[in-house]
């Protein structure tokens, strides 16, 4: 059995022990050096840099998301190799655009960076996927799509993950989505009861071992008439 070399975190960082942050100020703490490097490298694509509670937030142009994150991942002086989270924020104030948020960690430098892209009002909710850079983006982007309806272009398998595929009520974490759902309880129950057993499998799954061909004639007819399958 092959053994791996142990990867040490903080290997590229100056020899200092990280300590618990104390007395973090609301604004004005020192920014992560990566923010300056990003401004030097990408210029106007970096819209602004904020430091909130000691965490550096870099607002970037939505069109250059992929380039910026690719550079942060690949560049020897940055090496943000760990994608903690992909999510989005919609504000209660309808004037504020929806933000897509990436939380990146550089394990060799022990750095943390929040990258944000604001999708302007009135534009389709679409942004580049970072799936080809981080495989962890797979489910995180799917969840973000499921909850906010943000389409990550370039994601190979962008479908709902927590809600089922036939879910018709919209995107639950949007502010215009009521807390109790769009449909009434009776309508939700009616839809749940109307589901067919074969609809538990997606067409891709039904293609395994010719499962589709073995379904009863009537089920096949329903499915080929376009009844959605899969969860």
């Amino acid at each position, binding site marked *: 059995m092959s053994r791996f070399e142990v990867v040490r975190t903080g290997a590229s960082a100056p020899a200092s022990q990280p300590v618990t942050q104390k007395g973090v100020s609301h604004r004005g703490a020192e920014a992560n050096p990566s923010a300056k490097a990003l401004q030097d490298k990408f210029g106007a694509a970096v819209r602004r840099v904020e430091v909130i509670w000691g965490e550096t937030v870099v607002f970037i142009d939505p069109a250059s998301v992929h380039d910026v994150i690719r550079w942060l991942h690949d560049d020897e002086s940055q090496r943000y190799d760990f994608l903690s989270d992909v999510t989005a924020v919609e504000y209660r104030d309808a004037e504020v655009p929806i933000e897509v948020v990436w939380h990146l960690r550089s394990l060799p430098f022990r750095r943390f960076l929040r990258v944000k892209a604001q999708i302007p009002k009135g534009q389709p909710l679409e942004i580049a996927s970072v799936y080809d850079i981080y495989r962890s983006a797979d489910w995180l982007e799917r969840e973000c799509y499921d909850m906010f309806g943000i389409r990550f272009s370039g994601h190979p398998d962008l479908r709902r993950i927590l809600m089922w595929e036939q879910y018709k009520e919209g995107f639950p974490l949007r502010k215009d989505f009521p807390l109790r759902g769009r449909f009434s309880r009776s309508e939700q129950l009616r839809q749940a009861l109307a589901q067919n057993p074969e609809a538990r499998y997606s067409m891709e799954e039904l293609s395994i*071992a010719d*499962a589709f061909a073995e379904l009863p004639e009537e089920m096949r007819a329903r499915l080929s008439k376009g009844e959605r399958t899969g969860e």
Partner: protein
Amino acid sequence: MAKRTVEVELSTTGLDAQGRPQRVPILTDDGGGGLALQAPPAMEPDLDGEHMLINIGPQHPATHGVLRLVLELDGETVVRCIPHIGYLHCGFEKIGEYRQYNQIICWTDREDYLNSIGNNVAFALGAERLFGIEITERCKVLRVIASELSRIMSHLVWLGTFCIDIGAFTPFLWAFQRREEIYRLLEKWIGARLTTSATRVGGMAADIPNGWMDGLRQFIRTFPHTLDEIDRVLTKNAIWVGRTVGLGVMSPEEAINWGLSGPMLRASGVDYDVRKDFPYLDYETYDFEVPVGTNGDVYDRYLVRFEELRQSVRILQQAADRLSDGPVNIDDPRIILPPKSKATSEMESMIHHFKVVMEGPRPPIGESYFAVESPKGEKGYYMVSDGTAKPVRWRIRPPSFVNLAAIPKMVEGHLLSDVIAINASIDIVMGEIDR
């Protein structure tokens, strides 16, 4: 303080030099008076390469909750694995936008329910970053005790259920017996076993009762014996080793790229531990080591979690020794409830009580992402505030959600029975994955 690599030594008979389980050769008479190795049995004929569709779950005891896996099998080998999640989705993040910060703490119990008090601590720390609060020394130590007790509880459940999945029943009973003791301690402290809701923004719901530390010290003293016992029956057991070594291997580069965290990542040989690399609660002042595996398989995940149990006991011991007297909660009536006796007798305290309960504490405009090392991995709470008493966005970074996303990669090419072992080694909690 130095991080340490736990050397994985496999010295069980029945293993070859590389640590792989070895078949005992069957010797036959070679006809000339000597003995010869029997030829390996011929493989079964390929049934026209016909694949099979197998559905596991969502109601299946070995999926650790309502996880559903659709598998494509070639004989008994997994060709493709398609996981389905969401059966337990309750919309925690949506509900959080309609609740005050102290009310959300009750929701964090129910999300990773094996680590409820650890989630309470994590959420309170995140909210305090957002409020700009510095908590008291006693509160910090109490929270370290809470987090480590909860890590032990979670790992014991993992250990017990993992044993059952693989077919060992006794360690399950030993593990759950000790877990029950921690539950009793928590019940004495908080009044609840599972849904603890132990923290408040700026402090704890309750200080520990008199004599509680004696119970904790007794647990610290006796718990390592149980660990030794389980160690003795499992770690060098040839069946255990045979069922776990070489399964679901993730290399360090893959593990980082797939976003694995916690014991999953450390078993792959990356020594990333939030407590060491981005410390909180003064973890850098505790003397403990981070176990790191070198093979990245199911067996290494077992060893890493097992060693973490021992290290948690060390941390508990140090925390018990340094617990000082003093206030638990910060002194700020806008955030912390006044004592009940004052709230019913003094006008000013009653107003504070009313304001905190009815309106809730308000953080300034801002946002924070606070990550802690939960038993499952890096658990982060991302909160965005617009200055009102309820967050605009409350995001949970669920470690087992991201860890589970790697299951198709880990199980492909392995046997159907190994899917159960690999799934158990991820240590998933569906409450956290579906939220």
